[in-house]
């Protein structure tokens, strides 16, 4: 498919730079989704009766970690809501593109959340921490 020149209304970056920023944004939003699912799973396991002391899998969430995870969940929802509102209102025109500045800002906010969730997950168990931290 023929590529369209991206409109650079607020920035003078070239098209290649724009694509790079889009790619970084895509990675950031994917990581947000994946990170949220990890948190959701951990909290689900924490509350599940089948993972009582007789089960082989024991995740030890301290009250503080649990509180942090729930807080991160709430922040993820607020973040998405704010980013949606930041783009355009309900009567937006599809002819108005996202600017590079907006995309960079969104990516930075998403990455900030991603870093905090990784830091929190690495505190949970040594084995979990080892695996996750090695990925970074």
């Amino acid at each position, binding site marked *: *498919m023929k590529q369209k020149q991206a409109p650079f209304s607020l920035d003078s970056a070239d098209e290649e730079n724009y694509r790079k920023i*889009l790619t970084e944004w895509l990675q950031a939003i*994917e990581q947000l*989704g994946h990170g949220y*699912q990890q948190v959701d799973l951990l909290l689900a396991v924490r509350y599940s009766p*089948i993972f009582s002391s007789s089960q082989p899998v024991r995740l030890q969430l301290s009250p503080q970690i649990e509180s942090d995870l729930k807080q991160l969940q709430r922040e993820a929802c607020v973040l*998405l809501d704010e980013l949606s509102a930041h783009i355009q209102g309900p009567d*937006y025109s599809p002819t108005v593109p996202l600017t590079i500045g907006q995309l960079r800002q969104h990516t930075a906010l998403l990455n900030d959340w991603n870093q905090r969730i990784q830091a929190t997950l690495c505190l949970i168990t040594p084995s979990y921490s080892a695996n996750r931290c090695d*990925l970074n």
Partner: protein
Amino acid sequence: MEKTTNTFETLLDKYLFRVASAVIDQFDSAHQDKLIHLMLTCNKSRIVSPPLTAEFEHQQTTKHAKKIRNQSVEDSLRAQWQSAVSLPGRGYVAYQQRQLVIYQTHIDLMLHYIAHLGKLLEQATGKEEAQPSELIRLIQYQTLQDRYIVKVAKLRAEQQKVDVQLNLYYESIALETGTSPI
């Protein structure tokens, strides 16, 4: 917590849709596919899709073994959890009813997107002399709308499946207790 998950997924879907509407014609086709894939999978159990770029792919390959090992633990936990909550008995009806509501919410959202894309298509086709770039955008809107329609059909099928399971459960309970089904 289910409600929170659903809210997150809905918000994610909404955000992706808004970004896609604004930037989709600025992506090359590979990134368009990536974004559309993301939109279509954001309500499934795994959002993460294959790596985007060659260098990222190379990095990921070296870490693949660790990732697989780690994911296998998560998969195991998820499977046990899902198995526990889906067993008939206490909480089963509430779980299935909640699933029905989640499916319906998602379907409503998809229908809203389809309607919105219909408006965009109407605007785009109303022009007498369409530029090549506008024709490309038209095709993209149409593709996205088609995929949403397919997704709605899949969601309805899943919803129907849950509905049937729930009705069978009601009937089995009614047979056991000698009362008429709900």
